[in-house]
């Protein structure tokens, strides 16, 4: 399996580290790990160095995860890059909205390494 370049988007730097650790615990081989604190920073990072996988929070200042997804869909080079939302947002309506604008799935915080593995390994396997 090739090493995955991942972009982790969350306004909490602590949470970004937890997500990275969970990916490793799930057995996903990581290459470059890029971080962004909001959707606007993530757009710049993704344009500069396109990732294989994006994990994004929904509720963030400056640009939230849903707006980020909409902007990402406009970038030709990002088409096909799977985006999975990792969020405390339990609202079914917001999750449906995220899926409708391109998210491939979601993981609700708090999460277990097993949940991360279950949701992401099928996506990551498809990238190798």
């Amino acid at each position, binding site marked *: 399996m090739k090493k995955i370049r991942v972009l982790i988007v969350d*306004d*909490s730097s*602590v949470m970004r580290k937890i997500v990275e650790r969970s990916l490793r615990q799930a057995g996903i081989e990581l290459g470059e790990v890029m971080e962004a604190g909001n959707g606007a920073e993530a757009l710049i990072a993704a344009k500069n160095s396109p990732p294989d996988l994006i994990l994004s929070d929904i509720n963030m200042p400056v640009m939230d995860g849903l707006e980020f997804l909409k902007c990402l869909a406009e970038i030709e080079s990002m088409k096909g890059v799977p985006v999975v939302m990792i969020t*405390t947002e339990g609202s*079914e309506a917001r999750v449906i909205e995220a899926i409708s604008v391109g998210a491939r799935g979601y993981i609700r*915080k*708090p*999460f*277990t390494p097993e949940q991360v593995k279950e949701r992401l390994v099928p996506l990551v396997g498809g990238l190798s």
Partner: protein
Amino acid sequence: MSFANRSMEAAVAGKPQPGWKDVLEEAAIEVFELMASVQLAPLPEPTQPASGAITSMVGMAGALCGMMNIRCSHTAAQRLAGCMLAGSHVSSAGTIRDALGELCNMIAGNFKAKIPSLADHCMLSVPTVITGDDYSLEPVDPFQVIHIAFDFSGDTIHVALVMHS
């Protein structure tokens, strides 16, 4: 079900229910265990107001209007941040605030997710953290509070949900 009926059901759900203390306790224990690998034991029902030099707060609006907060000592917050970062020593005040804010955010999210009729009818704010040696949180009347204290290896972590009627 019509929108009006769903809204009414959500409003009823937003009234504090007797079982919510157990739900909050479970939600908090899960968050501390899964995100910080910390197993907390609830202490007997607190009789004194929460104390501690750092408080994180997340506002809740909609079917349930109020605020979730975590209050503890600076030392406890520093230890919690270290646990979230896999045992690293954390000295940055910003990282400690970030960690406590995120824990509060997840407890609020996990609590409302456990009450299905709240999940789609209650929004959360981004966390705010306040610090200091001498302050108290004074909600505006009328309000109700669910207050749970946990033992964290000798430190006390207070988790409280303030609800406005």
